């Protein structure tokens, strides 16, 4: 299956022969889909800047944009602390998934063992176990380990993921064998080969994995919902849920809170747009 998204399409002559109406219809479909995708997010931003007396306005832009909703949120919920926590959790999760994935992928690619197939299958199939099925034993284990209401508790269970191992495994398999043979003949040990030869050449897959793992960890809701108790020990998704339960009909502040929770991800997207899309496309849905 190809991922060449910008490849010229297969119908070079058609564009000019097609009647204008057809081309308009094509744009119409895409504009409709684009508006459907982006308008809800735009409306969230606009509402967050509306003063309280204008909250139900349907104007596309507030007449007097204000930050009062943001100030309200920041005084009610420890949002900044939660944002900092979420950055830590998401970055640590992504980092650890890269490391554990890299080590496991290297083992699977470098050595041929009788159990390789079994190990590979075991890792891949763990993806199919729904989290809701294992949540009670996981919760009990986390509480026995003293991980309830800690950031470590949010990170450790996600420190390894089948997806990370498989993505790096596929990337590593296409690494040229000759270079590794040469290094081996020069007497380089397996760990030296991994860290000094393989890893420096895996920039693209590592970047893809980091982007996806970071965004998934940022958006994770279920496990923090089980584990977190106090807002200041929790992540931003939980803060948002708490804020909605308390102040569910204060639409301005609620939208401001939602903006704060999504801003970091949207900024990452604005800066790395092409890379983000391609990372997700190459690896499918997670």
């Amino acid at each position, binding site marked *: 299956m190809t991922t060449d998204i910008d490849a010229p*399409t*297969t119908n070079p002559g058609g564009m000019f022969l097609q009647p204008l109406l057809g081309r308009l219809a094509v744009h119409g479909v895409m504009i409709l889909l684009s508006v459907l995708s982006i308008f*809800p997010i735009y409306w969230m931003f606009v509402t967050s800047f509306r003063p309280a007396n204008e909250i139900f306005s349907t104007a596309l832009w507030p007449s007097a944009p204000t930050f009062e909703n943001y100030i309200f949120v920041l005084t009610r919920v420890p949002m900044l602390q939660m944002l900092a926590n979420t950055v830590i959790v998401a970055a640590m999760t992504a980092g650890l998934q890269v490391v554990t994935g890299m080590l496991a992928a290297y083992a699977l690619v470098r050595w041929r063992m009788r159990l390789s197939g079994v190990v*590979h299958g075991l890792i891949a199939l763990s993806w199919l176990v729904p989290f809701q099925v294992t949540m009670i034993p996981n919760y009990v284990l986390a509480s026995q380990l003293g991980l309830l209401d800690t950031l470590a508790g949010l990170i450790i269970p996600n420190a390894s993921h089948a997806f990370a191992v498989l993505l790096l495994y596929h990337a590593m398999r296409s690494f040229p064998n000759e270079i590794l043979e040469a290094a081996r003949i020069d007497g380089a040990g397996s760990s030296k080969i991994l860290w000094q030869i393989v890893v420096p050449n895996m920039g693209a897959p590592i970047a893809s994995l980091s982007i996806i793992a970071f965004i998934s960890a940022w958006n994770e809701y279920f496990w923090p919902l089980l584990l977190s108790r106090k807002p200041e020990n929790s992540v931003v998704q939980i803060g948002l849920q708490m804020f909605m339960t308390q102040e569910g009909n204060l639409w301005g502040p609620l939208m401001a809170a939602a903006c704060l929770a999504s801003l970091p991800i949207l900024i990452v997207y604005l800066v790395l747009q092409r890379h983000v899309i391609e990372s997700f496309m190459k690896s499918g849905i997670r």
Partner: protein
Amino acid sequence: MTSIEADIVLPKARAAGRAWVRRPREPITIAPWIYLAPALVLLMVWTYIPLVEAFRLSFYQWNMLPTSVPKYIGLKNYERLIALPEMRNALWNTLYYTLGLFPMSVVIPLFVAIWTQDLTGRARKIYRALIFVPMIVAPVVAAILWRWLLNEDQGIVTRGLDWLGLERIGFLTDPRYALATLTWITGWKLIGFSTLLFSAANSGINSAYIEAARIDGATRWGIIRDIRLPLLSPTILLLSMMTILFGAQWSFAYINVLTDGGPLKSTTNIFYLLWQYGFETMSAGWSSAAGMIAFAGFAVLAACCMWLTKRLAVYDN
């Protein structure tokens, strides 16, 4: 998209075709196990052992308090669950979520991708950047912003209905509509992304086939039916499989944030029931038994999907 998902489909076949082969005289070593240890230990501790533990718990009665001792009750949890109308309702809703997602995760994206294949240049890039965005929006954020858009009194959609002279709809409060609303929100996150996947696969089709067919006098629809759809079948099957296996799980956050399974249990599904039994009514045995039923059901579905994928997918070799 590479074949990462295909790994789930054909794990053994994939593992067998590796590139770097151990030289025959290399002694059997523990080194690979040291490299594998972190990932394997984590998967064991947080996935497989809990799975076995959940299986064991499904035969016990336990309220999850550390001070109480689980009591063995054999198959009673299963017997009660199967007799419970709640369970049947949740299973029907799970089916509804899954089937309801199909138009948004497969059918519409497929047609949009083929319909808009001639788009090029800047317009294509802009559309691409815009329709991808819902994919990275957090489920909780998506839930909250749709709650605002669909608000029964002042939401922009309600205002639109007023303007059109239509009756107001209780999108999240009317049992007739709530399930459809949550399915829509789940699908909203997927529709653009699926379209991009289909577009990528579609523009990767070798244009020589299309040209050849056109010279032979094939119609536009004939080309779609006989060339494009078969060559898009791996993507169609993959997205269908993802929808079937994960669709009901994706909707969890929306149910939890927006309806808590209501109104009148109309939006609950099997995964939400697990959560309610476990953490709202504190009956670990029920939750685990329901979890095992769900897991077994989805395992059978997964096996069917893989079998179908192997049989039906057409690859361009």
